[in-house]
């Protein structure tokens, strides 16, 4: 419980300071949709990023190797699994020795996470286990999602901007559909 709150607060701090106060975070009053935060850029309405924060208090090695891995495991009821471009996971090692996150941290789109974090289904439950290398020379699949803490604010600003852009282009497309006689064609 304490770990979860500390990790969420730490994440919020890094976004606020790293975006020079431009990012605003809101904690939903209920957690029924598994969002820890709704994130938007100050003054920008209509597009919010939903984020779930996951942390571990230790990192370990796998199979007797030397490389350190961040290992995060959790279960989700199938009916509550959200795979959506606007829903992301933030995963980090909360290092007790320094009482803050260690670099790198990971910002992962939910679709990507659900596809590659060793998903397995048992009845009504999905189980996920993220095993991401913390080593600088690693080439694992989570490399593209690495973010250093100081860059988190800027990274989330970029993600939000891309989502707004994607949202506005789809809006334009939906307006086109309303033109009488409009026919959609595409190349195969």
């Amino acid at each position, binding site marked *: 419980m304490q770990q979860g709150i500390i990790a969420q607060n730490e994440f919020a701090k890094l976004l606020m*300071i790293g975006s020079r*106060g431009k990012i605003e975070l809101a904690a939903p009053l209920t957690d029924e949709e598994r969002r820890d935060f709704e994130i938007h850029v100050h003054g920008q309405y209509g597009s919010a990023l939903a984020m779930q924060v996951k942390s571990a208090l230790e990192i370990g090695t796998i199979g007797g190797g030397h490389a350190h891995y961040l290992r995060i495991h959790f279960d989700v009821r199938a009916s509550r699994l959200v795979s959506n471009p606007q829903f992301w996971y933030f995963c980090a090692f909360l290092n007790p020795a320094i009482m803050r996150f260690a670099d790198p941290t990971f910002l992962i789109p939910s679709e990507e996470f659900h596809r590659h974090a060793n998903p397995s289904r048992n009845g009504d439950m999905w189980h996920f286990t993220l095993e991401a290398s913390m080593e600088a020379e690693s080439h694992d699949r989570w490399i593209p999602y690495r973010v250093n803490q100081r860059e988190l604010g800027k990274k989330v600003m970029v993600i939000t901007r891309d989502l707004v852009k994607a949202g506005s282009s789809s809006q334009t497309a939906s307006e086109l559909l309303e033109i009488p006689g409009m026919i959609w064609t595409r190349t195969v």
Partner: protein
Amino acid sequence: MRISSVQQGLIVEREFAKFLMMGSAGAIELAAPMSDDERRDYEIHVRGQYGVGVACQVKSAATLQHMSKNVRYLNIFFDVRAERLVNSPFFWYFFAYLDLELMGLADPTFLVPSTDFHKLAAPILRDGVWRFSMAASMEPKSRDRWNRYRVKALELGRALLEINKDLKRAHAVPMPPKGVLSAPGVIFVGSR
């Protein structure tokens, strides 16, 4: 653009909470009052210990002042309406510099009992309002009046546990020997 004062206040309160929880290995619990009528940001107690709690108000700055070459000071000032001033061994102030480069609290931080703070922070009473100003050196070699209240951020949890223990000892209510309370005709008399 930089973070707003509201964001700054929130970040520092949560940094303080983090250092207390992690630095006490989870032994310290914090509660945020639903209303701030008594100027407490947190009620702090040790898990499982009831009856003794420390109230704390958190104050911060996101810049340091250079009062002389190479000497950086944490400058904090604030006003309190006279009737809302709390002088109590159970009410403490926490002061810190939020280093925006570091994205966290810089060392040292300061934990000051309210009674000491109200004496040392150049108090001025005007029109029913107290004004307090604190200028604490951040330099390792400083020997200023705030030196004794310095605490490294990583030591905050242990420091608060110590404060709590001292308060518990100093304000323990002496209990009469077992059986006295149930003896017929016994009356308790207290002095004020």
